[in-house]
């Protein structure tokens, strides 16, 4: 069982607008765009050349960029942003991402299933995921720690990852504490749920 704790919604959407943003600085070649993209995102999001050109072609088709080079000679083509492209970029920057519809999160489904499957300790399942998440966070933190202090983009991107992973960990925490409070729904608890020790009981 392996879950990739990634979000694959709208990934290409972001690349599309990121390229538009890079072009606001002036006309650029495809290869140049890829290098700058990676530099700006702290090399956390590697792009392959194909992805760049597919995206650029779609942008050109939609009339958001225009190229000056001849068809086919992709690498040497220089792209520039159109007025429509600028409007689109501006609108996108201000449009809140779609957070309202619940994602079909694999992890949520797994936890929901684990509750129903006899003989499976849902706490153990949760802990396994939690551990893996924290390990991932440790890795991201290590990236941040080893990066030079003035790499702002990298810090922002890593923070975004960390906060996202952190939110998942928190959901697991919340799920676990909810499960403890309604022990009936957990058919096969391996360990009897203990009464939570109050923080205030420490002396």
């Amino acid at each position: 069982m392996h879950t990739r704790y990634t979000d694959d919604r709208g990934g290409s959407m972001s690349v599309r607008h990121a390229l538009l943003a890079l072009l606001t600085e002036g006309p650029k070649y495809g290869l140049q765009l890829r290098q700058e993209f990676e530099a700006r995102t702290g090399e956390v999001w590697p792009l392959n050349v194909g992805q760049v050109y597919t995206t650029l072609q779609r942008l050109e088709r939609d009339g958001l960029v225009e190229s000056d080079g001849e068809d086919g000679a992709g690498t040497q083509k220089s792209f520039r942003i159109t007025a429509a492209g600028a409007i689109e970029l501006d609108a996108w920057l201000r449009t809140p991402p779609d957070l309202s519809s619940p994602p079909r999160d694999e992890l949520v489904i797994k936890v929901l299933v684990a509750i129903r499957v006899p003989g499976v300790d849902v706490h153990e399942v949760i802990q396994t995921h939690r551990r893996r998440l924290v390990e991932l966070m440790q890795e991201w933190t290590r990236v941040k720690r080893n990066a030079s202090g003035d790499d702002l983009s990298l810090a922002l991107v890593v923070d975004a990852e960390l906060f996202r992973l952190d939110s998942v960990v928190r959901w697991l925490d919340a799920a676990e504490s909810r499960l403890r409070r309604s022990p009936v729904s957990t058919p096969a608890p391996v360990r009897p749920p203990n009464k939570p020790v109050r923080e205030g009981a420490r002396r």
Partner: protein
Amino acid sequence: MSALELSRVSKVYGSGAGEVHALRGVDLIVEPGELVAVMGPSGSGKSTLLTIAGSLEEPSRGEVTVGGLPLSRLSRNEKAALRRRAIGYVFQDFNLLAGLTAAENVSLPLELDGAPIRTARAAALAALERLDLAGDADRFPDDLSGGERQRVAIARAVVGQRHLLLADEPSGALDSVNGESVMRLVRETCQAGVAGVVVTHDAQLASWADRVVFLRDGRIVDQTARPDGPESLLETGPAR
């Protein structure tokens, strides 16, 4: 020799019907230079673990060894000496004596230990310097920001020759950027050879540790694997 070793440590508060088991047979070894985060929800016993490791409380059962010294064999005064010389504490919010300047707060453990005032101050200034607080040495805690206060507290916790740094939600009262800088300092301190234990419920803080130990109802239920190395993320991590 490990910097901190807890073996089969249990702690029970109260008795009879009001009995509360804060820790149930905890084993934990922290090596010099290692930063361990103890993660758990409130009431999991993580603060108790820290106070027992720091000799502020005695375990009901089990043994705690700091730098090879079993705490159960030490007198109250010897434990105090251990805290002055080997153990550094950082609490969540209340760390500094309002009546003393930053430098005096930092040099307090050394002075309590009988160090000459000049030596103690020099050591304190050095510690503050390392934490980028050299300019604040003669300011009073009331005049420092929350982040600065916490950094002074860390300076106090590491001044002199420390073996063990214990921190209870050290960035609890701070925003995430200030909290991060505090954790970065803890991390760097450990890199210099001090064993660190941070208890927290916050995964982001815990992720600064080499190893994260998960505490539930007074038991250690899991821990993260020793990391492969920093490069692993970019190789195996999600590609876009």
